[in-house]
């Protein structure tokens, strides 16, 4: 299944003298949860921006399936199945939750052509089998107009209660969940999540972790950045660890967790002497 694999090939991004992302290669296959960990400032968010087109790489390219998408605008990449949530939630604050989701659903790739002007009937055109499968298994198969998809996503994420609430009035936990729901409505092949658990309390985090598993089980590829190590290691199938813009370890979660660099630089499990001597950061 080569369609939908997200691949970074030798990505580089420099800011002045600082190389924020330094020759990063990464593969995020569909149906799997890929973790991306690393200390603050390692370049994780920057890498996300490069993948989604918010920023342009200085070197390297981004592949989605067999297509080189490096030159495409973010909205086009999104319509091709690469959907992102942000470290700072990016909902449309004056719209209701339902309308936020509708925006996601209405602009997804299959309906897009001519759809902006209301020319295309909902559900018209070629639909990706993958996305259909995902939605079907989630119980979200498009039974009717887009509103139905939204309704079903709301239902399955337990958001029905707030469907008519103005998004801007929601607390952090809900914001993140709604942003996640909005991304789901866009029927992604690959979902990029930047710190989805930040600011969530324990209960909300547990809920999120379950959602992640469910989504991946339906065939969506997930790339997740988060500092909640327990969450990350409990859901991922593979992990990349970045330090100073470079990937220093990758692969099996347990191996990465045991990696000495990761332990000393990222997890607070280094030999005591090292931790004490450097209060700031190595």
């Amino acid at each position, binding site marked *: 299944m080569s369609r939908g694999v997200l691949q970074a090939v030798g990505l580089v991004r420099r*800011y002045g003298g600082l190389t924020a992302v330094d020759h990063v290669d990464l593969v995020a296959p569909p149906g799997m949860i890929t973790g991306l*960990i*690393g*200390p*603050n*400032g*390692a370049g*994780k*968010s920057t890498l996300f921006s490069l993948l989604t087109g918010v920023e342009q790489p200085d070197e390297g390219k981004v592949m989605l399936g067999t297509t080189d998408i490096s030159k495409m605008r973010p909205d086009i990449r999104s319509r091709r199945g690469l959907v992102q949530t942000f*470290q700072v939630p990016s909902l449309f604050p004056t719209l209701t939750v339902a309308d936020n989701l509708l925006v996601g659903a209405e602009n997804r790739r299959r309906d897009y052509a001519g759809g902006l002007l209301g020319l295309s009937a909902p559900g018209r055109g070629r639909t990706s089998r993958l996305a259909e499968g995902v939605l079907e298994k989630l119980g979200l198969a498009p039974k009717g107009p887009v509103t139905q998809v939204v309704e079903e996503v709301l239902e399955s994420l337990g958001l029905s209660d707030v469907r008519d609430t103005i998004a801007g009035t929601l*607390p*952090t*936990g809900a914001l993140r969940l709604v942003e996640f729901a909005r991304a789901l409505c866009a029927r992604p092949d690959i979902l990029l999540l930047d*710190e989805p658990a*930040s*600011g*969530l*309390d*324990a*209960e*909300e985090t547990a809920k999120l972790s379950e959602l992640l598993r469910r989504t991946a089980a339906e065939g969506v590829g997930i790339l997740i950045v988060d*500092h909640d*190590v327990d969450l990350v290691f409990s859901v991922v199938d593979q992990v990349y660890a970045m330090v100073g813009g470079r990937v220093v370890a990758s692969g099996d979660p347990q191996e990465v967790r045991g990696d000495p660099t990761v332990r000393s*630089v*990222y*997890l*607070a499990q*280094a030999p005591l002497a090292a*931790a004490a001597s*450097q*209060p*700031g*950061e190595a």
Partner: protein
Amino acid sequence: MTTATAELRLADARAGYGTVEVLHGLDLAIPAGKVTALLGTNGAGKSTTLRVLAGLIPLRSGTLTWRGEDITRMSTVDRARRGLMLVPDERAVFATLSVRDNLQIIAETSGHPDITPALESFPRLRERLAQRAGSMSGGERRMLALARALLARPSVLMVDELSLGLSPKVAADLFGWLATVAASGTTVLLADQYTDQALAMADLVYVLHRGERSFVGTPAEFTHGAAATPA
């Protein structure tokens, strides 16, 4: 109250936003020179409490006293100048200013215009003195915010969600750093949901629930109580 000398005392405080009241008559006494943890789930009113203490939100009723003096009506600036320091959970650095300026401003207003102590505690900042604070990563911004608090030499330090967006190691380091600050006699008030680390260093624990106090006691009492009735 629990301790003889209360640094800050909030009595029957009501506050909120617009027509909505968030704190419904909260009583709080922050002991001097100790670490107090303010715990609660999202939406319990922790940040609102801290903003009330810092003077960002006016009290609708109730009083706030600081070492016995009524400061309910004192402006934010005056509170800050007299050593009451809040590190908010967001917008805690001047995004368009350089790292150096961010540090220098606070150093100058506190009367000790030397920023080296901050750079010693947070070496990462030394490499980034000229960088615009807004372009730093989420975690780096958090470090800068705390470095500023360090330079302010406050007598009361209030931190909202210390560990927000920080990698485990940095979070652990910062809790350690905060412990040294507290050990030097500064009164510390910590709002957090990361209960483990906050509990470990706290002398007194308050738990807020929907704008009201639902628990006050020592960490040990909290752990036992929590074990009996999971909150």
